[in-house]
């Protein structure tokens, strides 16, 4: 397979709010920018739009995110930014060469002077008995199906987990005609009330929240606070789901179980950042205790420990679209300056304003961290025969066994059990296995969590790797094959 080599000044990885903001800012400052995204359309998750083949008849029903998404993608289309959609970044070299593979089967090496990683996040997986049954969807996945495909994945639904995503997902399901049997939230109203004073400066967020609350109240959707989905049953897909009361450690209170007949359960316990690219780029990381994940260190300009590598949006930690837009603008301007485009007075003011906005939005992110941080009981829902690794089907008991035989970290358990070696590369099971190993060994989660990705970060045809290896050009290809 032939590989084309191309060059750009700034490569932006991810076309969500952070990536688009970075690309526009850098391009307006005079830089040549290439944006790469795996999806067929720009937008990422929160700004996900219906496919181009659909015609939007009632934009009002698509929410304020749709308006923002449209505004940004129109600006992107009018700009000089090059947009490569349907294109996967499967590897990177230390000299900022990116290995791309697109949906038409073309293989590209993109050499950049600076990189902005804005690769987003995904729903934090939580395992419970029955969690592999079809009909158990991540809340974000259900939202994507509703928001862009306008397809309702079930009729009788529980929406469960912790955090602000549950409300818009439940609202969208109701508006699309599904029967939402309950919104099951791990935290309590009392815990929410205690954070109210910290939210007062964030009027937009409060009005969104009240809108969803009103819609759910109006549709008489039952709300269960201090509860969690503890198991799912069914033969060829979920048919029943059981919820139970949980305490402040999110530990199940026996005897409080309630069963529901369902055909869809949407699970969302917050998000995990996609860290494959910062890890491959060898950015220095730190452990964020509330978000329970490693994140890249960066300075006020969003530059990481690796010169020329910037981060923005969920890549820097979970914080939402408004924060992502501010970080994207900062990273884009700083990257443009780095590659030789001096920032005039106006752009310097824009940079300062974005930095101020970022600090403000970070305040809100901290409130959500404090309120919705997962508590240890939730990692005890999985039973000995529950698979934690969905790809390789490795159960809790098998991992416990590997720990007893001396595996004291995720990496050691991986070698012994194949956990995290399937196509998802540990994106789904990594944190779950880390919590189990930590519990079994008494070590802190931050110390056992050492699952690191290797290229290709997502499966690509062997021919792509073979083509690179044949040209003998790259370290990444040699590692991969």
């Amino acid at each position, binding site marked *: 397979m032939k590989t084309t080599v191309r060059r750009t000044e700034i490569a932006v990885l991810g076309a969500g709010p952070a990536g688009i903001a970075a690309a526009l800012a850098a391009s307006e400052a005079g830089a040549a920018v290439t944006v790469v995204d795996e*999806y067929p359309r720009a937008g990422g998750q929160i700004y996900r739009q*219906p*496919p181009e083949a*659909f015609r939007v008849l*009632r934009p009002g029903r698509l929410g304020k995110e749709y308006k923002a998404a449209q505004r940004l993608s129109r600006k992107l289309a009018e700009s000089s930014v090059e947009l490569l959609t349907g294109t996967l970044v499967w590897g990177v070299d230390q000299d900022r060469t990116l290995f791309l593979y697109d949906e038409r089967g073309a293989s590209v090496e993109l050499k950049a002077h600076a990189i902005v990683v804005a690769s987003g996040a995904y729903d934090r997986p939580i395992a419970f008995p029955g969690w592999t049954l079809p009909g158990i969807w991540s809340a974000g996945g259900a939202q994507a*199906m509703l928001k862009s495909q306008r*397809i309702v994945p079930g009729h009788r639904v529980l929406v469960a987990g912790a955090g602000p995503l549950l409300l818009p997902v439940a609202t969208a399901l109701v508006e699309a005609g599904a029967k939402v049997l309950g919104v099951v939230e791990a935290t309590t109203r009392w815990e929410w009330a205690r954070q109210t004073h910290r939210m007062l400066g964030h009027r937009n967020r409060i009005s969104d929240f009240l809108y969803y609350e009103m819609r759910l109240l109006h549709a008489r959707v039952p709300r269960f606070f201090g509860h969690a989905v503890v198991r799912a049953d069914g033969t060829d897909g979920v048919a029943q789901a059981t919820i139970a009361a949980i305490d402040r450690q999110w530990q199940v209170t026996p005897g409080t179980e309630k069963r529901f007949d369902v*055909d869809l359960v949407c699970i969302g316990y917050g998000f995990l950042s996609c860290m494959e690219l910062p890890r491959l780029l060898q950015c220095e990381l730190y452990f964020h205790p509330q978000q329970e994940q490693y994140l890249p260190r960066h300075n006020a300009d969003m530059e990481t420990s690796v010169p020329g590598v910037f981060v923005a949006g969920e890549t820097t930690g979970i914080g939402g679209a408004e924060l992502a837009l501010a970080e994207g603008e900062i990273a884009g301007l700083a990257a443009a300056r780095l590659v030789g485009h001096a920032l005039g007075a106006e752009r310097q003011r824009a940079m300062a304003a974005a930095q101020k906005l970022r600090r403000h939005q970070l305040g809100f992110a901290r409130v959500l961290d404090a309120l919705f941080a997962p508590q240890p009981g939730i990692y005890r829902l999985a039973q000995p025969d529950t698979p934690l690794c*969905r790809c390789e089907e490795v159960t809790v008991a098998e991992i416990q066994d590997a720990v007893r035989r001396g595996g004291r970290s995720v990496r050691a358990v991986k070698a012994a059990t194949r956990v995290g070696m399937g196509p998802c590369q540990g994106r789904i099971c990594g944190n779950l296995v880390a919590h189990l190993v930590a519990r079994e060994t008494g070590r802190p989660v931050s110390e056992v969590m050492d699952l690191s990705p290797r290229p290709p970060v997502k499966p690509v045809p062997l021919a792509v790797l073979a083509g690179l290896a044949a040209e003998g050009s790259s370290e990444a290809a040699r590692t991969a094959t």
Partner: protein
Amino acid sequence: MICHRAGGARHGVAGNETAHMGRGRAMREEVGRRAVVERGKLIEFVVDGEVLPAYVGETIAGALTAAGRRVFRHSEKTGSPRGVFCGIGICFDCLVAVEGLGRVRSCMVEVRPGMRVSLEGRGVAASEDDRATD
């Protein structure tokens, strides 16, 4: 369960499609004057020999879901049923085999007219099925 879809009337196919949707649990969103979107052109694709309807722009996972299909494959080791899980291209649970493309994440690939999809990975040439992960 009658399945509703936006734009069906314009393409003049609503009746035809309902027949396909008999087993449906899931559905395409509300139709008629309240429709939020008008879907792309109505097409057909083939799943293990069965012809299913889809609209241009829908993903394979979307069209299968709208047809009431939840089980896309069974796992190798324990034979447990799998379908859409993350829905955004992270988990690889929703893998299906597509003629000419090999195994793909059905949530990431748009359906094309006449596309031949095989659940359980049956009937796809092995040479196209080799994908490296590690």
